[in-house]
């Protein structure tokens, strides 16, 4: 069983966001593997441990992204490929999907796992775009995965409920929290990861031009949202406070 797992390195979810020249600054920010991608990596490793095979983690990024890939290797992935190119630095979801699809086109795989979205841009585009570019079926936001013969049965979150899907393989799956419990890389795992292959490829290596990955959506500017002002704290006996609150909700906020 050959599994390819796509990951993105993102800011720590507790990171404080600052803006510099209309862009989000990455100064002093702790970088992590996108939390949803960790579920994807965990599921891939569990499937490998059960069925044998290989897990290859792939990413689009820069020098720092190697740390994220090493982390996945320490968790138990077998090797890693990083697509790194100056032309991808201001890329969008289209850029990443095109580059990943080209990389995967020359790889063998039975399953492709991604996280359901990255916690930075929250776009949730790459898994579906990648599936389309590879002409594969997709199942997004999955919370359970069961491997069958030439197909997989998954549960995915839909609005207000869940859906059970049977998916022909190979296919792209995007992981939601709840799919599994992510392991911590063990110390022996971290030591072994150092000896595992981490290959860096450029667009030229993939036979792509800068034009092929030119973003379709371009950031004009980023800004901080207007701060939400603290309102008032109502004081007094419970009955009085509650009565005042209901009155305010009706007459001032007009929300009930």
């Amino acid at each position: 069983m050959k599994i390819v797992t796509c990951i993105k390195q993102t800011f720590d979810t507790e990171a404080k966001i600052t803006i510099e020249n209309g862009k989000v600054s990455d100064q002093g920010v702790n970088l992590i593997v996108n939390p949803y991608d960790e579920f994807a990596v965990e599921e891939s490793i569990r499937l490998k441990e059960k069925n044998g095979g290989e897990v290859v983690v792939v990413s689009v990024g820069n020098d720092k992204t190697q740390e994220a890939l090493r982390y996945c290797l320490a968790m138990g992935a077998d090797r890693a490929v990083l697509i790194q190119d100056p032309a991808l630095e201001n890329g969008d979801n289209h850029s990443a999907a095109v580059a990943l699809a080209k990389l995967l086109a020359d790889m063998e795989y039975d399953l492709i796992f991604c996280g359901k979205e990255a916690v930075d841009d929250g776009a949730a585009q790459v898994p579906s775009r990648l599936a389309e570019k590879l002409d594969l079926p997709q199942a997004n936001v999955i919370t359970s995965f069961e491997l069958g013969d030439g197909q997989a049965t998954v549960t995915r979150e839909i609005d207000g409920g869940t859906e059970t899907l049977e998916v022909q393989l190979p296919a792209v799956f995007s992981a939601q929290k709840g799919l599994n419990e992510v392991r911590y890389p063990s110390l022996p795992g971290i030591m072994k990861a150092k000896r595992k292959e981490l290959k860096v490829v450029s667009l030229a290596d993939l036979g792509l031009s800068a034009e092929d990955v030119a973003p379709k959506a371009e950031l004009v500017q980023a800004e901080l949202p207007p701060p939400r002002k603290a309102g008032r704290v109502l004081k007094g006996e419970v009955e009085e406070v509650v009565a005042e609150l209901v009155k305010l909700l009706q007459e001032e906020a007009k929300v009930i």
Partner: protein
Amino acid sequence: MSIVVFAEQRGGTLRKITYEVVSEGKRLAAAAGDSLKVLLAGSDVAGLAEELKKFGADEIAVANDAALADYTTDAYAAVLAAYIQQENPGLVLLGHSAIGKDLAPRVAARLDAGLVSDCIDVKFADGDYAFVHPIYAGKAIATYKVNSAVKMATLRPNVFPVEENAGAGSVVDFSTEIPAPRTKVLEVKQQGGDRPELTEADIICSGGRGLGNPDGFQLIEQLADILGAAVGSSRAAVDAGWRDHQFQVGQTGKVVSPNLYIACGISGAIQHLAGMGSSKCIIGINKDPEANIFNVADYGIEGDLYKVVPALIEKLKEVKG
């Protein structure tokens, strides 16, 4: 030029998000001087076209096919992509719902179109659209331009006002070859009973660690029942196993923007605020006077939620008759 809106229905019922997206489509069409076309896809959905007419579409294309009975990516993507190719619109809008999130990027990739997901505003000025999308779960707001001929966006639920409008509302049939889907829906389970879905709800009552135990959610549910609200949860309550993850509000859960958000026993960690900070009115009920929730709440009540919430329920019963 035209603007195409994908009308989402599930089980023969139009979703609330559809009204929101069509309404916004109409506003943008008016601003840009474009026509508004709505694609309604499904099986036995022709009757829903009538309902859509109220929102000012110039044309409602109905793709009625038994193969569209269940939502499958393959079938729906084929229909939407074919319709876009036929109409060649300048802008395509979908809801940022489970279906929209699955469908929009698939179709965007097929058409090599730029897509901005989860927009809270779309502006039209100087002949171009600007798409406003919160990033880092709302900790920053980004504005994008799209440079492809067809520009696509998904719109965040509960943000765009629903507005009825006059329009020609001609209904036409649309059909295209629908491939055999490579996924099969085996079962659909709706959860949460009659409660509205979190991302669609006007009012959300949420509970956190301050409830002290999983049974505390019964109280939150009683409050939600009176208000017709959805029930949400903080990450702490989910991590403690008191509530399923699909009810989690926050950076690694659902992002919501109801009219009223009532946070009970929720301290207001930054990840939680990221998920509900755009609510129009926030109430914080917490016994810890230092709780961060009071820094964002429009109205705060400092006290034991097990005293405050029952009193609030009683008062609401009285007011609502």
